[in-house]
């Protein structure tokens, strides 16, 4: 079988994926006070992964990212729910969040919030769900 000549596609996507991943992480972190957050960051992330799956075949990418996306979804939801349970542990209503300002070297005065943990859960759940959907449609079997 003749190999398809897709060297340009590969070269472009290798660069593009890095940019998209960086952008989606930026989106994720800006989510606390500006537009963005776990959902949209997760979607951006899975867009990058989808590009990889499109340019290279499914087996190659799976070898390099050996993650079961269904499990990733479950872990994401669990992280999000347990951040909520954290509120219960401290005697506050479910999903209560806390934040404070810390002086961290390099970054200076930084706001750290438990809502970010919740957002990590959301992002993982979104990545897991969207990738499971895309892969199960893309798979032949």
């Amino acid at each position, binding site marked *: 079988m003749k190999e398809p000549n897709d060297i340009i596609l590969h070269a472009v996507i290798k660069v593009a994926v890095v940019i998209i991943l960086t952008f989606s992480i930026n989106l994720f972190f800006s989510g606390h006070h500006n537009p963005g957050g776990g959902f949209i960051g997760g979607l951006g992330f899975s867009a990058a992964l989808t590009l990889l799956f499109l340019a290279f075949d499914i087996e190659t990418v799976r070898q390099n990212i050996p993650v079961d996306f269904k499990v990733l979804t479950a*872990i994401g939801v669990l992280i999000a729910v347990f951040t909520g349970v954290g509120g219960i542990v401290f005697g506050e209503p479910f999903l209560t969040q806390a934040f404070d300002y810390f002086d961290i070297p390099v970054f200076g005065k930084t706001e750290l919030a438990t809502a970010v943990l919740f957002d990590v859960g959301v992002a993982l759940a979104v990545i897991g769900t969207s990738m499971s959907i895309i892969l199960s449609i893309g798979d032949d079997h």
Partner: protein
Amino acid sequence: MNNLIIMPIIIPLIAGMVMVIFRRNLKLHKILSLIALSGSGIIAVKLMGENKNDGIQTLHLGDWKPPFGVSMVADMFSSMMLLITSIVAVCCLLYAFRSIGEERESHYFYPLFLFLITGVNGSFITGDLFNLFVCFEVMLISSYVLISLGGTKVQLRESIKYVLTNIISSFLFLVAIAYIYAITGTLNFAHLSVRVAETGQSGLLTIISILLLVIFSLKAALFLFFWLPGSYSAPPTAVAAVFAALLTKVGIYAIFRLFTLVFYHEPKVTHLLIGILGAATMILGAIGAVAHWDIKNILAYNVIIGVGFIIAGLASFSIEGLTGSVYYMIHDIIVKALIFLLGGTIISLTGTGKLKDMSGLIRNHPYLGWMFFIAALSLAGIPPLSGFLGKVFITQGTFEAGYFWLGAIGLLTSLMALYSVIKIFMNCFWGETFLSEEMESGTTKGVMFPIACLSLLTILLGLGAEGISAYTQLAVQTLMNPEIYIQAVFGGETAP
């Protein structure tokens, strides 16, 4: 603030997600799902106790005060529903252990079952309209998968109809939410109640309430039940029993919540319409139940009759009628699960659902036969079984409200329902025994325990109706007096 309220939602959710991570360990699945469902049952009992002593319990997620945040409200009605949900879910789960098969089990059956219960529990305790939508979706999406899981031809055919119907009704639900938000500026039930009472229930609001009624009718199989007989006869028995017992009841619960708490100002329009829909549902359901000669269809039409009857109590909008509805809803959840499990067991024994192809099962399965007889009598409301008290109260309520036709139709259709299930009993259990135990295609081994539990429960509920009357009175008191609910949600402060 009471963090217990959120537990019936997050316990099944966490358990289900842990199962997804450990997909291969089916033993863990069974143990975890049993623990999670019993756990939420115990919490429901605790909530009922707190409801009795301290009134309505509320939780404002993330400490955002209503109407801005998400409120969870557990009044006595919700807590009772939570408890019955857990009981029935545990029984169906025990039945599923023996009957569902490894193929389905390894394809996430137990996690999906728990997510379904998550959605059902969430719908019962949510305090605002949008969250009701979300919890409905959690429940419906799980039910889409459960109904098609296994992929037999009939399942796929029926699931397409089921999914399409529900997607359309969910779409209308969102539209109605948008309308109601545009007019009142809030979605919190308590706040909605305040705002609607302030401005008066104008014609526009009444129209929207009827749109919501149509949406919930589609989900509750009130008059718009065309999808039900097919969808409920397709999935395996344990799933069908949970669907029949719980899914329509969630729709009925939503109708009760809205038309007792928010849209109670124009009973001559909305509640009369509800009564007419209920009467039509009962008549059409009864005709279907009498006409069919297939077990699954007869039972599915019996679900429809039950829906119409519960709704008749709401139509009367009196203390008697609502008391009857609460009693009958509890009874109906239990007895529908019971009779679906019984019907499914009969079908698995004989290998057919056609009444004319079976006879004389009672010789080899006396317990199954007599429990079916108990369930049939309970379904028709013969004293001292659990259906009796609900029927009495609902009939009394409709008569007192002046809806004699509604009460009469209710009584007539219960006779027809009795005929339809006794027809199953006579054809299946009486007559010549031509199926020896070796020739049976299934077995009753292991599945009798949940059936016996539910039968016992319907007898106990009938005999001990006095014992739960304190709880039902509290539930009805809250339903009839919206101020109690509003007071509890806003914690004594005035609503903005």
